């Protein structure tokens, strides 16, 4: 795994970023890395699936403060694993749920596409 770096955000800042992001963006993805350079295969899979249907996905690179973001996401999704996708503020899944929705042809509906 990647080396641990100093967190760029405090716990309170991470909570604030999570809340603002899911409130202000219809589709949001918390991932490791960026859409151009995902740092984990699961995050890569998640952003690719979302971008099949939406070109306006807001992303947050949780590696900027990994433990702070895991803790900040848990009240919203019930989990700490990354990636996590939200639509209209609701948790809709990690990469495996997105993949299953895609296979069932339900992903476009889930993403309001």
């Amino acid at each position, binding site marked *: *795994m990647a080396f641990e770096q100093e967190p760029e955000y405090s716990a309170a800042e991470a909570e604030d970023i999570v809340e603002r992001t899911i409130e202000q963006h219809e589709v949001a993805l918390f991932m490791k890395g960026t859409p151009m350079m995902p740092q984990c295969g699961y995050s890569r899979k998640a952003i690719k699936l979302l971008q099949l249907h939406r070109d306006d996905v807001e992303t947050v690179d949780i590696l900027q403060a990994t433990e702070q973001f*895991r803790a900040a996401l848990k009240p919203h999704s019930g*989990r*700490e*694993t990354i990636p996590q996708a939200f639509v209209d503020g609701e948790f809709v*899944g990690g990469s*495996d*749920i997105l993949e299953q*929705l895609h296979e069932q042809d339900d992903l476009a509906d889930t993403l309001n596409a």
Partner: protein
Amino acid sequence: MVSVLPAWGYRHRMEPDDIEALIERTVPDAEATVKTPRDPDDDKHFAIEVVSPAFAGETLVDQHQLVHDALDGRLTKDIHAIELRTRTPE
């Protein structure tokens, strides 16, 4: 009979059998199958399939939540990531 689990936070190498037992103990009438999907030296990624009647009528998010709850405290630590499939019995 419920057996004693290692204390949370104790770093314990998780074997596929341990994960199956943990899920089957928590999710009602579950049948869990756990495999390591990646290279054999990687002991922290697992592919998990869980079949349980408890998933009937639940959304995928809620189905997955039942399994995540069963693994609470181990995910992201002893277990880096899971590839999870849930379904009800045929």
